[in-house]
């Protein structure tokens, strides 16, 4: 493999056109003679994307996704780092499991896999897991979540928020009041009323977000809201930030694009948690991402085996694929609409998530000399139709099948090594 190459004529951050020369995984001033040339005319160069919310399913559900297949999907989507959620089997609630996930990620070598540790043992919400051991393990865990479940007990949440301060960690919360959402199937509103599917009310998220920001303020900790999905949650986070509370929030591509109207098909590919909301919520989420109230985009990439989606809506698992389509959706709903520039995309999909995850020493770095060559090239003209049978993920539960997206990643590099190359570049690194 070539150790020296130059990306020629890319639009850096969507702005000025320039070259990026790379030698031995580091961005340098100029490439040596004979270095491989990548013609990036018309492409946008961004720092490698950093996902704060990925389900890789390994260990436990390797039939749905593995660290290898998930890493490949991530590389194809332009990501160079993903944060793997803890709801595996066994749960990532010990140093042993997070080290296994971390080292398997390194072995695969397509993206850096940063394990997220469980807040409570077995994600049961009863006893704090050994977060210190995970933080001090080789996996260097900084983010903790019971994702899939909410840390609903206010005392346990308070303790967790306090405890992680010892190692500069953060609790990232799946905000869902469990009592208000027993049996819930979709957003509670006009569509659920008509379809006869049990409702997941917005207040079940908003009440937890409100409680958590107040707890974070009280104990002086930072808290991160996962997959924020309602206009009301936006208002609460906006209020908390104005008050100086250390809260950050993420939004998923699907909550920026799709609404609860999709449930009318009864196709469980649209069943996700938190559920798809109303157009008013979608509009508020886009505006909040544009004005900085919402800090980042994270995928909540959630692969599921066919049999867990090819069934009755109420029996189906929650979740949808997201890694490979995220950049196209963000381009469609944020960039092509003028709400964000590509410079902003670098911030919300790379720099800020790296900072929240405390991996900013390695990811979300500037495209500058001396920095690690973690980067992705985006073709904003590469209009394509999503095909569920052509995904890198082991699962097929993309909600965008048949949908046209405006652009996509065409090359991704992790410390200078190509982890994904569009066919147009095949040969360059032969």
């Amino acid at each position, binding site marked *: 493999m070539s150790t020296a190459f130059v990306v020629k004529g890319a639009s850096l951050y969507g702005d000025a056109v320039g070259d990026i020369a790379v030698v031995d995984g580091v961005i340098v001033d100029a490439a040596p003679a004979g270095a491989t040339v990548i013609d990036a005319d018309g492409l946008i160069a961004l720092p490698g994307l950093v996902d704060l919310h990925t389900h890789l399913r390994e260990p436990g559900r390797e039939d749905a996704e593995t660290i290898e297949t998930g890493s490949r999907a991530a590389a194809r989507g332009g990501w160079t780092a993903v944060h793997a959620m803890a709801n595996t089997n066994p749960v990532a609630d010990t140093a042993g499991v997070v080290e296994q996930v971390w080292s398997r990620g390194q072995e695969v070598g397509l993206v850096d896999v940063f394990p997220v540790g469980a807040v409570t043992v077995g994600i049961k919400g009863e006893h704090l897991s050994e977060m210190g051991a995970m933080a001090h393990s080789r996996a260097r865990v900084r983010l903790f979540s019971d994702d899939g479940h909410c840390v609903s007990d206010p005392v346990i949440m308070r303790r967790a928020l306090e405890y992680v301060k010892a190692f500069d960690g953060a609790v990232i919360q799946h905000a869902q009041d469990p*009592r208000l959402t*027993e049996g819930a*199937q979709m957003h*509670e*509103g*006009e*569509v*659920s*009323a*008509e*379809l*006869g*599917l*049990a*409702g997941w*009310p917005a207040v079940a998220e908003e009440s937890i977000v409100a409680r958590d920001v107040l707890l974070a303020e009280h104990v002086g900790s930072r808290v991160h809201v996962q997959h924020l999905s309602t206009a009301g949650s936006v208002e609460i986070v906006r209020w908390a930030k104005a008050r100086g509370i250390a809260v950050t929030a993420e939004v998923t591509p699907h909550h920026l694009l799709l609404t609860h109207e999709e449930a009318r*098909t*009864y*196709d469980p590919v649209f069943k996700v948690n938190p559920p798809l909301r109303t157009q008013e919520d979608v509009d508020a989420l886009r505006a909040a991402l544009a004005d900085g109230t919402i800090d980042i985009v994270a995928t909540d990439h959630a692969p599921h085996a066919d*049999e867990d989606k*090819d*069934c*009755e*809506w*109420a*029996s189906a698992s929650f979740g949808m694929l997201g890694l490979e389509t995220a950049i196209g959706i963000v381009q469609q709903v944020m960039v092509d609409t003028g709400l964000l520039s590509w410079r902003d995309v670098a911030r919300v999909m790379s720099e800020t998530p790296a900072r929240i995850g405390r991996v900013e020493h390695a990811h979300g770095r500037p495209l500058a000399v001396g920095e690690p060559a973690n980067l992705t090239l985006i073709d904003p003209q590469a209009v394509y139709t999503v095909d569920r049978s052509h995904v890198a993920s082991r699962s097929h539960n993309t909600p965008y099948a048949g949908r046209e997206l405006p652009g996509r990643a065409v090359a991704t590099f992790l410390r200078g090594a190509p982890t994904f190359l569009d066919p147009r570049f095949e040969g360059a690194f032969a």
Partner: protein
Amino acid sequence: MKHLLGTETLSRDEAILILDTAEQMAATQEREIRKLPTLRGKTVVNLFFEDSTRTRMSFEAAAKRLSADVINFAAKGSSVSKGESLKDTALTLQAMGADAVVIRHWASGAAYQLARGEWLHGCVLNAGDGTHQHPTQALLDAYTARRHLVDSPTGNGLDGLRIAIVGDILHSRVARSNVYLLTTLGAKVTLVAPPTLVPVGIGPWPVDIFHSLDAAIEAQEIDAVMMLRVQRERMTGGGAAFFPSPEEYTRLFGLDGARLARLPQHAIVMHPGPMNRGLEISAEAADSARSVIVEQVANGVAVRMAALYLLLAGEERP
């Protein structure tokens, strides 16, 4: 019509065609030999993922009186204990050559998923899906109301009639099907329920809402009142019960002799069954001359014959 899944997309003409066809079917049931040869050679599968002896019997009687071959398939499988999947069951039925599948399922949307045609090609008749739709129940309700309340029923809708549906609207597929069908047929619908049993998001429904039966009777001239069954589990949810006690429910929403007497003289009483006597309806109301509850059962067979006939035999007349 390829399928009968719900009432929300049924046009007025289609609905009246079904009701008129049901009248013809009912007429044939007065004859000495009640069996018609119309669906000879067709196979109708009753696919029941949820126990409902009376609905299954009604569909079975309807199909048999049209000379169809009937297969009853009681599939096990609830949301808790997953049995054979809907998909595998559907593939099995397809392999057996089902011309029509009558499906009752605990999951909202199950009939719609079958009708997508990826798993089987026959026509699908929704016999109740979760808390979503139960179109033949609404059709038999409309049929019954039309017979009693419309002067020359054939070819007509329910224009100008006021029909009250009382009870658990939130969990009721009967209510959802009736709201759309009755409105399409020109009736005005009033829902009467405690606020806990009215769905959030009901705004667009073409209905008036009251939170006590007395208030509804006082405010409106009601031509037919439809009492819904109150499920036991709605009362016993511990801290999450939908109303405080059966007694309070009966006080506010039960139909008894006194309330019945305050309805207009011509008003009829309906109930999809099975009834909780003493809870949503008193014995006096259930057994009164104004009650058409038993007749609803008989009409159910005629309406289901009409639906099967129209789906399977096309445009010909019996």
